[in-house]
């Protein structure tokens, strides 16, 4: 079966972003960009399913600026067979991305779509669920284990307080949690091979999708700073501070 894996280009998770002084956005000029870590886990899972023989083809999709090609190539270096870029300069919100992905899914007819559970820039945690709703497919979010069994997929999910297992009828949507797998490093030969793989580009207009943002960002501000703390010399001093100054114990 065919698997679609959407990947997002985000500020690298090691970068501490700064808010612009005019408070319009965070400053991401000249900042290192990478594939969203949850999406790497999604690509890895698709690749493992292919290695097991369950999956025949993996298509990586990204929506956004031209440079998103880099992230599609990274997905190809891990194991994706080809790529689709939906190219636009509009700042895309989850609903718009879900609609674009639905249009791609309608073309490609995958049996499974694996997404990351959230992107580490907007921290929305919406796209997978929205895509499932638009396609009318079942969903299993925050997956920590995936087993395809015939025309169903059994997914263990991380929920508050523990784990839960669901069985979904294919075609289905899965979003990955951190513990699903450990993504492999792309080797140099794989990176070279990835450059030769097919990458098709569409515009949102080609897919008939309106990507106008529904939410306007009024302001982006620094979070309230914590006031500088003190270092205490020993446990006795710590207990004293907690009892008499902070009064929390």
């Amino acid at each position, binding site marked *: 079966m065919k698997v679609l894996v959407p990947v997002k280009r985000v*500020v690298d998770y090691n970068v501490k972003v700064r808010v612009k002084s005019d408070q319009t956005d*965070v400053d991401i000029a000249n900042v290192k960009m990478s594939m969203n870590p949850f999406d790497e886990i999604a690509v890895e899972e698709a690749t493992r399913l292919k290695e097991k023989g369950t999956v025949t083809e993996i298509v990586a999709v990204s929506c956004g600026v031209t440079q998103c090609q880099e992230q599609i190539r990274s997905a190809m270096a891990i194991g994706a067979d080809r790529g689709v870029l939906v190219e636009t300069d509009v700042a895309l919100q989850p*609903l718009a991305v879900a609609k674009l992905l639905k249009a791609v899914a309608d073309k490609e007819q995958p049996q499974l779509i694996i997404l990351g559970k*959230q992107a580490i820039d907007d921290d929305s*945690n919406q*796209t997978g*669920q929205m895509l499932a709703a638009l396609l009318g497919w079942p969903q299993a979010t925050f997956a920590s284990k995936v087993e395809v069994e015939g025309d169903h997929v059994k997914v263990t999910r991380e929920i508050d*307080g523990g784990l839960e297992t669901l069985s979904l009828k294919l075609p289905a949507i899965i979003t990955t949690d951190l513990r699903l797998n450990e993504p492999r490093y792309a080797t140099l030969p794989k990176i070279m091979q990835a450059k030769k793989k097919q990458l098709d580009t569409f515009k949102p207009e080609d897919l008939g999708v309106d990507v106008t943002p529904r939410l306007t960002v009024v302001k982006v*501000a620094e979070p309230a700073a914590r006031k500088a703390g003190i270092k205490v010399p020993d446990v006795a001093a710590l207990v004293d501070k907690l009892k008499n100054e902070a009064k929390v114990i």
Partner: protein
Amino acid sequence: MTVLVIAEHDNNSIKSATLNTVAAASKLGADIHVLVAGKDVSSAAGQAAQIAGVSKVLVADGDALANDLAENLAEQVLQVAGNYSHILFPATASGKNTAPRVAAKLDVAQISEITAIIDADTFERPIYAGNAIATVKSADAKKVITVRTTAFDAVANTGGSAAQESLAVVADSGLSTFVGREIAKSARPELTAASVIVSGGRGLGSAENFKILDGLADKLGAAVGASRAAVDAGYAPNDLQVGQTGKVVAPQLYIAVGISGAIQHLAGMKDSKVIVAINKDPEAPIFGVADYGLVADLFTAVPELEKSI
């Protein structure tokens, strides 16, 4: 304008996340209705009716809703969505699972994990792991929102006397089925509701050593948390994880033991009232947010702290 709050419950009792979400709803200055959807929920519905400020409780009680499946719960919410200007879910695993499904079906953008309400259309929410706070304005007629529960003080769970109304329960979608659930057992308070949390990181070194925190936690009546490093290393189960990808907490006192303080961890705990860090590395970033820092070996400091409280 009427606001619908989707209750978080375990079919028997209302969870505290619901009370925080009602608190957020009350800031909108509108009538508040609560939906209790599940199986055999009469006692949870009764508790919901007593929440201060709630004027009506909608009860959907049936097999399709027994296991909190997103497909069915979203359909149930959509049946009544037409009557409401705002639909609020707590930003719990369940709320986050279902809310976007409802929003997409209504063709509206969802606003995730709000931490403040400016007006009926404008909300604050953290982005980039809490390193920036965005103020966003929605152009949609209907708002679907998840509420970061630690950002709103819970309303009282008594004093209300809302009327209850039964809803027709949706048919099972047949798309997904529930197989099983494994809930970690703990006698300690729930992490997101605890007023004191003792959290351990990679510095603990092993699952065996992680137990060193138990005595201190018991003495403080605290919940035990963990950093992602500790969870990944297998020292603690994953539902204890505090951080961007785990739980977001804001207790009165947060004691970070052997935790360096990566930004992903700080995103989950930096709104705590008082933060204490115990770490042997004086350069650890955790000291940048700690009110009280103790540079010491945790294996001597923790037992000593336990004894002196």
